[in-house]
């Protein structure tokens, strides 16, 4: 729109603030004069209103862009492939339903050579900004984009004045402000249940699955045991998940606490799917 119209609009705003009781409407410029010329508007306020309406319509119809702006310098290059869309959808699901699996998701993603989908980078960094270990791990997963993003969105930087992103952040390497570890954190698991995990690799799934199924069927496990059972299933070697799923699926109808049985089965299935989604195609081909 022309500078003439813009200038006229500014005058209208000034008069509108004061009111036509105190100041007359501005002189109408050429094209607007034609639009509002009307002998039936006797009062200054009515003329003012007509002018405002006309100039508003002109300003909207004459929408023009601002001057081109300088683009931002981009983040560093990250050669790793973006993780599959279903994996980033899974992360959202984990955050909402099974946060106990989030560490393993992140560590597996990094280990498999993926980079975090940029779509979830900001919410992920923001979510862990008060946890240096997880935030540091997220930085590794997100890659150079993390440092770049934090520069423009400070609210997702690490809280507590340690928000600097180390440039040498690599898997398993300590950055200047934090330690990045790819070790799964320990979860509280009672000794008698933890002992099940030392079963031979090929047997661990059946052993754990049968123990849980038997406990559910006998009513030994109830809602109070949910947390420790979840922890146990979150730390069972992944090779045993298929067996556990089989045992829990067949034992589920006989469980005294059916809801707990269904929930544990969902956890096992979610964990299996999560790990499958993060396998690189070339790795699965081998």
């Amino acid at each position, binding site marked *: 729109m022309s500078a003439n119209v813009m200038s006229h609009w500014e005058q*209208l*705003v000034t008069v*509108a*603030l*004061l*009111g*036509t*009781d*105190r100041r007359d409407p501005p002189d109408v410029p050429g094209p607007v004069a034609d639009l509002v010329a009307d002998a039936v508007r006797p*009062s*200054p*306020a*009515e003329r*003012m*209103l*007509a002018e*405002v*309406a*006309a*100039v*508003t*319509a002109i*300003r*909207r*119809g*004459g*929408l*023009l*862009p*601002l*001057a*081109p*702006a*300088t*683009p*931002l*310098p*981009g*983040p560093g290059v990250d050669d790793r492939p973006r993780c599959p*869309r279903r994996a980033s959808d899974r992360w959202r699901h984990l955050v909402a339903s099974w946060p106990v699996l989030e560490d393993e998701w992140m560590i597996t993603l990094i280990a498999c050579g993926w980079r975090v989908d*940029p*779509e979830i*980078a*900001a*919410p992920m*960094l*923001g*979510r862990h900004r008060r946890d240096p270990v997880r935030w540091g791990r997220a930085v590794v997963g997100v890659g150079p*984009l993390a440092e*770049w*993003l934090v520069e*423009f*969105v400070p*609210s*997702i930087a690490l809280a507590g004045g340690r928000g600097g992103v180390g440039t040498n952040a690599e898997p398993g390497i300590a950055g200047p402000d934090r330690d990045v570890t790819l070790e799964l954190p320990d979860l509280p698991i009672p000794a008698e249940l933890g002992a099940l995990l030392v079963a031979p690799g090929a047997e661990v799934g059946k052993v754990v699955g049968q123990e849980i199924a038997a406990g559910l069927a006998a009513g030994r496990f109830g809602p109070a045991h949910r947390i420790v059972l979840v922890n146990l299933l979150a730390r069972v070697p992944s090779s045993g998940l298929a067996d556990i799923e089989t045992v829990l699926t067949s034992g589920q109808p006989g469980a005294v606490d059916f809801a707990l049985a269904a929930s544990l089965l969902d956890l096992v299935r979610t964990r299996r799917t999560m790990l499958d989604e993060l396998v690189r195609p070339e790795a699965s081909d081998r």
Partner: protein
Amino acid sequence: MTRWSVEQVEAIAPSAASMSAARPVAAVSRWRGLGADDRAVWGAFHGSGAEPYDTMVDHAAVGFSCSCPSRRVPCKHALALLLLWIDGQIADGVPPATVAGWLARRGPVVVKPPQDEGADAGAGSGAESDPGAGSTPEPAPERNASVPDDRLAGPDHHDDRPDGDRSRDDRVARMYDGLNELDRWLVDRMRTGLADPALARFETWDALASRLVDARAGSLANRVRRLAGVVGASPDWHELVLDEIGLLHLLSQAGRRLTTLSDPLADRVATTIGWQVRQLDVLANVPDTDDWVVAGRSDTREDRIEVRRFWLRGATSNRWALVLSFAAYRQSLDTSLHVGTVVRADLHRYPGGALRSLVGDRFDGPEPAIAAAPPASSVSAACTEIGSMLAVEPWLDRVPAVVRAAPTRVEGRWVLTDDTGALPLRIDSVGTGQSGRAGQVPSGLEVLLAVSGGRPVDLTIEWTPTGVVPLTIHRVDDAVDIGPRADPSFVGAA
């Protein structure tokens, strides 16, 4: 019985567009119970809606009645009925009870059919829905076909209108009164100024909004209530309020001149003011069938209602459509459409070919819209596209576009830019970003920055008077929905 000529029908049509709309309706196969005698012609029009429209025309004393929701009198159904009759496609018959009753209420024939040349559309008897029937000539802009006859016919006028027509006419009269009151109120604001302390009180606006609700101008009432929240909310609130005052005046003026507007524009003005249209009537309109790409979604809280907008774009027609859903506390918004997918469906537009539409039959999909992603334009071209839509309807609050642009910062303000220009991003001062915090940042900025890495991306945006809102990032293999999302503790909004 003297049959009319086509020219006579054209003479009583509210506009040339009405005649154009009537011609496709003048097909015998779409009518049931057709009949005519020396006084009237009648029939029931079967569109795709559940209920037929009962239409009758008094061709001797010139009067019309139709159960359709159109404000136009005569409506396209009445015109079509006359065209069929002129064409000899309606056999003589005995009027059914409803027609006979209607004719009885109209009384005996007292006038002749309209003149061929220069016939005044208002010339006629005291018919209930006859435009300007029995009226004293008034300046054309102030006349409206739907103005109740008793307002025009003088104190001796006997109100013998059927209940449906009387109800509609009363509604129109109330709307006119409301628009007049609105304009007087706006003039007062100009007189006393926006610095008037009264404007800082919600009651000042709420009282006007309540009167507009009473006047059946609910959409204007909503605009007025929203405006109350703008006062004092930002340093440039005076400008925003003045802008909206200008639009309210435009709508008020246009609403009182509906008959002088083209049919589509009149329909859009009426809808914008708050004229209610039944969904059944919308679904009875001819559908717009296409592969509809769900290009964007945005949720906004308006008063105590959450509004979800889905912006759809026809893969073939390249036309935009808007599908709205509403939810109050603990209700659910529409989750049947998914951003980044394409669905082959019938879309039924609200009157006037408006953006707002209803989804009818779905034939296929949803499928990922990878190949059918809407084409992106430059910032400058997008401004032209948006401006041309606003030139027709300056009161539009939101206009969609797809641009290829990069996010960047200019003097502390975020914009979308390319080498043709820049568009400011709207600051979402009350919403939350995806990291869950409130702040003075554009909605979706964090994800936009992360996905774009500062490079140009294809984006569906929603223009608003205070800046554009990024809704969807179209990547090569998928789409990322970054539109503002409803608070899940308020409504179901998966």
